[in-house]
């Protein structure tokens, strides 16, 4: 098995490791580090359950090869809520934007990214911002309400 040395920052802490070249960032987070907040849905970039932030951009961690992570800065749902539940998560809870919860970490990360680029999105921009994340329970309405709530679009 071909391996590679990687060195990157994950949730504010430096990671140095040697891993097989042919695994994804998602595999590494879940199977090597046991950070299971990031979910695997489709495994091909369709569903967004595996969304994390890499160098300030939202990415599907199932489509990032581990060597591509070398030298990068990665934020996962665990890092986001390191110091307790965030405003985004609070809004999801308050709006009841969760049913089974499987898509929620990805939704939260995509919301975090959207608001980092556009702090006060309108509904269309929210829908566009979450367009790479599928939810099979909620029908999206409450998720959108939650994003409106946290971005001040809802009284």
């Amino acid at each position, binding site marked *: 098995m071909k391996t590679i040395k990687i060195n990157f920052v994950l949730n504010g802490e430096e990671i140095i490791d040697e891993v097989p*070249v042919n695994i994804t960032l998602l595999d590494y987070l879940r199977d090597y580090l046991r950070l299971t907040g990031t979910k695997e849905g489709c495994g*091909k970039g*369709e569903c*967004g359950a595996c969304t994390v932030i890499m160098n300030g951009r939202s*990415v*599907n961690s199932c489509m990032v*090869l581990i*060597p591509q992570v070398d030298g990068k800065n990665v934020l996962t749902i665990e890092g986001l809520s390191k110091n307790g539940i965030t405003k985004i998560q609070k809004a999801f809870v308050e709006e009841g934007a969760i049913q089974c919860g499987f898509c929620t970490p990805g939704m939260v990360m*995509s919301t975090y990214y959207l608001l980092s680029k556009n702090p006060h999105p309108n509904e269309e921009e929210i829908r566009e911002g979450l367009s*790479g994340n599928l939810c099979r329970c909620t029908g999206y309405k409450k998720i959108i309400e939650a994003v409106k709530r946290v971005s001040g679009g809802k009284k």
Partner: protein
Amino acid sequence: MKEFEYLKPRDLNEALLFAREHGHRKRFLAGGTDLIVRLKDNLIREDYIIDIGEIEELRGIEKKNGEIHIGPITTHSEIIESEITKKYAPLLVEAVKTIGSPQIRNRGTIGGNICNASPAGDSIPALVVSEARFVVKSLNNERIIDIKDFFVGPGKTSLKQDEILYKIIIPEWKENEIGFFNKLGQRNAMSISIASVAVKLEREKDNKFKKAFVSFGAVSPVVNRATKCENLLTERELDSKDYIFEAANCALDEVNPITDVRATREYRREVSKYLLYESLLNLLGIGG
């Protein structure tokens, strides 16, 4: 996932050395939004993966002598956000916005969309109507390939094994030009086009145009210009719905789609026609 040898060249020169050394046994990795899925599905024969995703010489957007130069590993998001492309390549921006999702656009690259040479690659019709040129490099050579000569079949380009796409060049958008990119997919985000169309019209006066460029995506083995439609669009003033319909109807002679899981051949032919018709009415402000 398939086992492979991972190579990460330090610069373009080293990438070209690796490309020459490994020839048909190598694949370039840029953003990976397409390649990594195919590696997982064991659809990649090549044993060497050359990661060009951080070679700075291959990234960036510049305005130079009336043209826009884009490095192939520039991501879709970078193209959408750049002030240069927003102002001087608005049609390309419009097309690239429809690719994938925010996550995909943050990783996927324009060069990847081009070199995968999928007839459904959404940047391609916009590049075709922009008459894009590609600068390609190998260790000892540099040449320019016109977009009309670049694609030779579904998934196939005229790039040689030791060559790399180095720059995408399109002319600056001019004041008297208008255009659009429109596509039909199965959902708004993440959908592979069933059919798409890009149009660029160069205005002579009012709704009379001296040049017309039309290109359909996902409905032919190779994305080309639809010259019959183009000729009708410049022949006379575009002031009536009937005449525009006649021009759009030429799409039926121009497209040669396949039937696949997304749509049938017949449906794609009809959609091509109506995508062009409705988008033209919309562009020209003629009531529908």
